[in-house]
């Protein structure tokens, strides 16, 4: 467990969480960011890294990845600390008035201000809509491969047609007792060389490839012994396996934030439009996760919200100091912070 003390804990390292670092930094406030993904950018890099965005002021065309890269460059002078691959899991008020944010990796961040910039929530693996799948999760059904050794000697069924499904088919084939890849069509949304490698393995009988979908799971006490597969030609049949790894990408779920005791409206955090503070003092919400009259889910709106949030965060973090409003174009003080003066 590591305990960190800072000015502001930010949940979410998407574009709005990143820009919040900039606005806070101009006011000398330090930030730590927590994100469940393994890199910055949130939806911009997870959902549409290559897709162009046309409505960022001053950037006529920019991709999700480019915008993220530019924001990372912009906030570099403020050296924020990132805690990636971690889900914000708990929020608790301390006796001294500060907040303690904990993550599922047992990081503790203590700060007077918490900013929730979590977009649509945490990115979590999509769970196939198969009845009773929850009972097998963690024992026979896995959404990621953390330790390959855990899969040695298993009779594995992998579902999906993307890069993860193909990569793990190729990597687990040598150590599995048997491995079957199941996908709904004979085509893949994956790198061509991976597809070729998989077809090679199938041609040599090292793996099986079935064009089908998984309809039901069979077993007991969370231990799988077979599944029902189906396709239009063969109808339904049983397939013996003890391990099922579905790879259908990620989806957004609000997750533990729902348990933080905040005022939620349809999974959004209600805020005022002067400070973008929730009804809990010290807890702010900016970007897609907040709601207020007239809210537009646009990146540019989130940038504005970040700037106003930072003003109030300053008053909370430095109650005895006067906030000096300055422009980056004219203030040598700000320019020094940015490393350009």
């Amino acid at each position, binding site marked *: 467990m590591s305990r960190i003390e800072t000015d502001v804990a930010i949940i979410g390292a998407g574009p709005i969480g990143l820009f919040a670092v900039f606005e806070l930094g101009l006011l000398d406030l330090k930030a730590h960011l927590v994100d469940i993904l393994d890199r910055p950018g949130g939806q911009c890099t997870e959902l549409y890294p290559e897709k162009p965005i046309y409505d960022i002021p001053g950037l006529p065309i920019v991709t999700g990845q480019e915008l993220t890269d530019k924001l990372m460059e912009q906030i570099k002078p403020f050296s924020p600390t990132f805690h990636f691959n971690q889900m914000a899991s708990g929020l608790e008020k301390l006796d001294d008035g500060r907040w303690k944010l904990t993550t599922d990796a047992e990081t503790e961040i203590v700060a007077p201000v918490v900013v929730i910039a979590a977009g649509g929530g945490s990115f979590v693996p999509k769970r196939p809509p198969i009845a009773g799948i929850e009972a097998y999760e963690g024992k026979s059904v896995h959404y990621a491969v953390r330790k390959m050794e855990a899969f040695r000697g298993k009779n594995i069924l992998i579902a*999906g047609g993307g890069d993860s499904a193909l990569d793990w088919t190729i990597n687990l084939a040598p150590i599995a007792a048997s491995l079957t890849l199941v996908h709904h069509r004979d085509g893949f949304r994956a790198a061509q060389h991976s597809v070729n490698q998989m077809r090679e393995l199938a041609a040599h009988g090292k793996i099986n490839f079935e064009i089908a979908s998984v309809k039901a799971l069979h077993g007991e006490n969370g231990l799988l012994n077979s599944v029902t597969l189906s396709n239009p030609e063969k109808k339904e049949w049983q397939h013996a396996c003890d391990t099922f790894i579905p790879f259908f*990408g990620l989806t957004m779920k609000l997750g533990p934030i729902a348990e933080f005791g905040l005022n939620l409206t349809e999974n959004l955090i209600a805020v005022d439009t002067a400070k973008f503070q929730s009804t809990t003092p010290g807890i702010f919400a900016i970007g897609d996760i907040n709601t207020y009259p007239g809210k537009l*889910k646009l990146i540019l709106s989130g940038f504005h919200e970040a700037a106003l949030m930072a003003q109030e965060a300053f008053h909370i973090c430095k109650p005895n100091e006067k906030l000096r409003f300055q422009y980056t174009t004219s203030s040598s003080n700000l320019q020094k912070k940015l490393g350009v003066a």
Partner: protein
Amino acid sequence: MKIIATDREGAEHIVEGRDGWSVMEILRDAGLPIAAECGGACACATCHVYVTGDWAEKLPAKSDAETDMLDMALAVEPNSRLSCQITCAPELDGLTVTVAPE
């Protein structure tokens, strides 16, 4: 044009389409449970619907991008479509869709 949409509980909703809008936008604005996480960029597969009746054949064919993105959808069937990739038009009057499970 009208779209007849069946939700995950089996209830039928008749919603008014608008020429040029995507079916996803119409369903989402009508309050159907369409996540459409990427906002219509064919990048997330969370606007997955089944087109029913003979609409699978009558609709314009899927683009390669839509076919690829459907690999990230759950419970894909031959009549699966991403509703953000279907554009409302007069000839689609009476389109029947069922919201896919999540």
